[in-house]
């Protein structure tokens, strides 16, 4: 199987909802085996960008190359073929409540392949093993905790061994221990399978732990798309406020500082 070096290559992407511009001149790349974290405040366009990467929306202009193919130019059959190489874990898990966990995990196999029932069952159980849900295949989603639902959704996303994995807000609504476990899993998947992984998150700690590169969105534009080290070192005030820390090298104005500390006291 031929794998282009750039697994994701987004170039000058522009998109509108109605007449409102939502994404403006977005360009970034991810190599095969890289973990790209997309960050940004609420409403900055993270989910919109993810939906475009998944081919769920057609942009106004620009190109989105996944595994060497520009998805804005593909027909439905070509997109269907490409989707076999793409796994998606949505924010809420998006499991079907009427199906068991195992049936949920098998779903992409039924959609995309013609395999023996035994093969599908073994494949889904192998992935439940990977996400530490061994033996849970016969439970219903309603019987799972929030963290377990995310892990089941991850098992479903990887059941076809995708080259590209997209993960929307893996840690949202989870306690720190459970979200750290998910971060660990994301790293294991990349290391074992050389998957290219796109994670949308606003959890800074998680982003720094898993990312090779971070793309920071601000009001639909890219503020920065660079390595973790470069993002950490950035002196852009908007990045700094996202990182929620004062730059170490920022000159302190003693009058302003004292005023901030003592306002309404003196």
């Amino acid at each position, binding site marked *: 199987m031929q794998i282009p070096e750039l697994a994701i290559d987004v170039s000058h992407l522009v998109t509108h909802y109605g007449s409102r511009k939502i994404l403006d001149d977005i360009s970034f790349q991810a190599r095969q085996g890289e973990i790209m974290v997309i960050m940004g405040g609420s409403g900055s366009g993270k989910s919109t960008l993810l939906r475009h990467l998944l081919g769920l929306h057609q942009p106004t202009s620009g190109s989105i190359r996944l595994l060497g193919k520009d998805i804005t130019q593909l027909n439905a059959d070509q997109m269907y073929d490409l989707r076999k190489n793409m796994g998606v874990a949505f924010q809420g898990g998006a499991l079907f409540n009427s199906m068991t966990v195992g049936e949920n995990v098998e779903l992409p196999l039924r959609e995309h392949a013609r395999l023996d029932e035994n093969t599908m069952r073994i494949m889904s159980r192998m992935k439940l*093993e990977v996400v530490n849900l061994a033996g849970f295949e016969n439970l219903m989603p309603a019987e799972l905790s929030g963290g377990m639902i995310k892990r089941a959704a991850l098992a479903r996303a990887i059941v076809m061994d995708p080259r590209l994995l997209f993960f929307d807000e893996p840690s949202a609504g989870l306690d720190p221990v459970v979200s750290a476990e998910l971060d660990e899993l994301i790293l294991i998947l990349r290391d*074992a399978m050389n998957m290219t992984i796109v994670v949308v998150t606003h959890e800074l700690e998680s982003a720094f732990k898993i990312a090779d590169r971070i793309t920071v969105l601000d009001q639909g534009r890219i503020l920065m798309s660079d390595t973790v080290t470069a993002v950490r070192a950035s002196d852009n005030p908007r990045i700094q406020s996202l990182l929620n820390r004062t730059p170490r090298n920022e000159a302190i104005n003693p009058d302003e500082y004292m005023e901030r500390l003592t306002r309404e006291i003196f």
Partner: protein
Amino acid sequence: MDIQIEDRLPFKLVRLSGDVDLHSSPRAREAILNALKLKMPLLVELSAVSYMDSSGVASLVEGYQTARKQGLEFGLVAVAQSAMNVLKLARLDKVFPIYDSLDEII
């Protein structure tokens, strides 16, 4: 994907080559399960496999369990890297008998 079946007494030897993926793995499964019907110990040789996905590994799992149920020896020989990645991810590298080469077992 190509399949070759040989006798390497006391074993039956199934050699897979090329891509063992969603498309081709049903044939690999069938070859392995059919070979086991001969009630001979089975080796699956994978040195010429260029790519193996989870569906291929699932077929190996089903073959191994079928062999175990009948008390037949079963082993993997010269496991290619992509197959090893899938095996390791599910910790199956600690479950299957795995040999580096045929010389090691025959």
